[in-house]
């Protein structure tokens, strides 16, 4: 039990923050807790969360992917065009996932084979993918996404339970398993901790790094296809600045930008906190300008809490040892 709290202290503190946020907003503005509003929060959290979960994998390797916002627009536009042209929804979705995966792999190849820094490589593809979205749509939104498709990705199967939320959940489970239980997951953490040591252990670092960029982009591709389902249009201008929202969800959830550390659950919770805050500020009638300031502050404060938490956990560990009087472990840093 103690170990559970220690290992998940970050996630638990985000849960506490979410509860406090709901209670506070709920008291000031009871409409915040209405079913419709909660649905709003979940819908926003789905988009940020899907993008954020993917990017968490990339950040754990010590990399970054700035192109996710553009991919949201590009995959959305292409899939919207396909469905409008009469391609069956299921096939459109499969192609959409494959397309997103390919775009991510291309990022990965630029970083591994050509040795570009992740920040620069994906800043480049951010512009390239955005441009492609404009090219394929000639700059106009793709209208008239058919209802069959929209029901498939965002239909309500039970009251208040949408397919999109299930997809969000499934992708989170998939990424959780990949990061925790597979060879790729071990290597992703190892690369983030010490890439050279991992390479010298005989791990094909480039292969696995490229792969995680591809898999990460599946989340954004899903988000893109859910978004066109929700809106009924594929908009080439959508998703600008979303890469920062996705990174924010990961950062609030405790993913270290230095690599090596981060969890899917943390990012999911981070996305919920982030979405809840954005919606809450709107419900409260806070001016848009101040909304920016408030969300920015949350990111800064969340990161600061992380710093404090690490310091405290070092100290409590020490106190626990003193009180329990154990000091059997003689090895360690001297």
């Amino acid at each position, binding site marked *: 039990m103690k170990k559970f709290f220690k290992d998940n202290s970050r996630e638990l503190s985000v849960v506490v923050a979410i509860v406090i946020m709901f209670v506070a907003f709920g008291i000031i503005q009871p409409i915040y807790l209405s079913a419709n509003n909660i649905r709003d929060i979940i819908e926003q959290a789905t988009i940020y969360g899907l993008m954020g979960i993917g990017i968490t994998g990339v950040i754990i390797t010590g990399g970054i992917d700035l192109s996710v916002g553009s991919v949201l627009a590009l995959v959305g536009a292409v899939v919207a065009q396909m469905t409008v042209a009469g391609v069956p929804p299921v096939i459109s979705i499969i192609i959409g996932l494959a397309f997103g995966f390919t775009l991510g792999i291309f990022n990965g190849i630029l970083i591994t084979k050509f040795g570009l820094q992740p920040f620069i490589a994906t800043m480049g593809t951010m512009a390239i993918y955005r441009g492609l979205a404009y090219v394929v749509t000639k700059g106009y939104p793709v209208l008239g996404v058919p209802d069959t498709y929209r029901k498939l990705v965002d239909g309500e199967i039970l009251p208040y339970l949408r397919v999109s939320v299930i997809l969000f959940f499934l992708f989170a489970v998939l990424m959780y*398993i990949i990061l925790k*239980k*597979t*060879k790729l*997951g*071990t*290597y992703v*953490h*190892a690369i*983030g*901790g*010490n890439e*050279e*040591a*991992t*390479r*010298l*252990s*005989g*791990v*094909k670092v480039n292969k696995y790094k490229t792969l995680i960029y591809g898999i990460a982009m599946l989340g954004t591709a899903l988000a893109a296809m859910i978004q066109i389902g929700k809106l009924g249009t594929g908009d080439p201008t959508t998703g600008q600045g979303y890469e920062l929202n996705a990174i924010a969800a990961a950062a609030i959830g405790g993913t270290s930008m230095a690599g*090596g*550390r981060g969890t899917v659950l943390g990012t999911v919770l981070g996305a919920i906190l982030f979405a809840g805050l954005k919606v809450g500020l709107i419900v409260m009638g806070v001016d848009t300008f101040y909304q920016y300031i408030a969300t920015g502050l949350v990111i800064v404060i969340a990161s600061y809490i992380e710093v404090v938490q690490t310091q405290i956990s*070092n100290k409590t*560990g*020490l106190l*626990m*040892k*003193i009180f329990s009087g154990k*000091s059997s*472990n*003689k*090895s*360690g*840093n*001297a």
Partner: protein
Amino acid sequence: MEDYIKFQNITKIFPGQRALNDVSFHICKGEIHALIGENGAGKSTLLNILHGMFSATKGKVFINSEEVKFTSAFEAIQKGIVKVHQEINAIPELTVAENLMLGNEIIKCGFILNKDQMIKETQELLDKLGCNFSAKEKMKNLSTGKKQMVQIAKALYINAKIISLDEPTASLSDGEVRILFKIINELKANGITILYISHKLDEIFELCDRATVLRDGEYIATLNIKQTTEDELIRSMVGRDVSMFGQRIKPFRVEKDKTVLKIESLSGTAGFKNINFELKKGEILCFFGLVGAMRTEVMRAIFGADHATGGMIYLNGNTLDNSSPSACVKEGIGLISENRKEEGFVKNLTNSDNIALASIQNYMNGFFVNRRLKEKNAVRVGEKVKLNPNNPDFMTSNLSGGNAQKVILAKWLSTNVDVLIMDEPTKGIDIGAKAEIYKLMEDLLEEGKSIIMVSSELTEAMGMSDRIIVMREGVIVAEFNRDEFAEERIITYAVGGMKNEEVF
């Protein structure tokens, strides 16, 4: 001499361990005082307390009979207590002068750096210390030894009274060590008190006045170096006799007619060329040489970590695909790098994950890593290498140097490589762990494996190897079979005192 620095009942408890337990002793003014003990004995912790990096859980530190309690390293430095770091921290893109005066820059007109003055003063200091490089040189162009000189010069610049050196010779060439010792003696002559941490006993006998021995966080003894012997010192460090230290204990088992690895005219961008040698089954083949002989570069090229520019490599008679480390591991070659922290283990992984890193396919259940299998292997191999603590969930980065090296060994023992290249396998490791690693090397031979060892310690090279190849400046200059081992001849070849000898 009076008690200049006095440690009184120092206890330091970290989460999960007691690093120091009731340690009391004193250091005299103007002496060179060695702190010795195995890795994990508490030497670095004690230094960190003196330098304000940690605060003691219990106990007091006195300097000049006055209790000191530093809350930061900066505060200690202001009081003239300076540490020259084990891992040299310098800013590579700045010049020597800028590095030296970092935080104490000379300013003119209120905010403009007075570079001329900075360079002039730095140069004076460097000249005084007998350094043969310019204050205008960029830090990144200096060797490790010279960077260390800059750090010492910096300590002098801020009028240090107490300087501690933590393993200062770990990556220095012999010549650089000579210069360093000269400087240290000069510091002593100027009344500066020196604390000196080293694993190399010969250095301590040459340089130090007294030595304090720590073991498992306990104070053992303070010995007067002039009145003690090496054996006595070792015994107090490890608490047992290690007279057979660095010697082969088991019978030799090299099979001279079985060539495992054959290298033909290998060359690489680093500058080594025409490297030819054969590794026999059951052999420990040592590559000896000075820093800069490019032994590490040759090994990295064989292992595929760097690309070779020419040459052929055969493993068990077949051409070796050494296009990448992963290809080499698959074919049966492993490499233990000289730089444990940078290239050896992954800091955010547990022991079991680090041990599994090269052999993860052995613990798979279809797509998934079987945690139980992985941990079972970690414990099994951990026991074999006497890992302490042998706990699969322990973070490798929290282990002492010797134990971290055992984790890396355990990683390769979990694979089925035939050839293990060990680059300075005992660098920075205490005597007890060293002996264990030597024993493991012999165990490996018994299992039918062969070892290439890169070593800069002649006692280790001569004690452990079947054969020694001497390299200098990128070429092989001599080869000795065990019955031809002679300290002076090997050294002479390594430093270039003799003409190259055709060896093949």
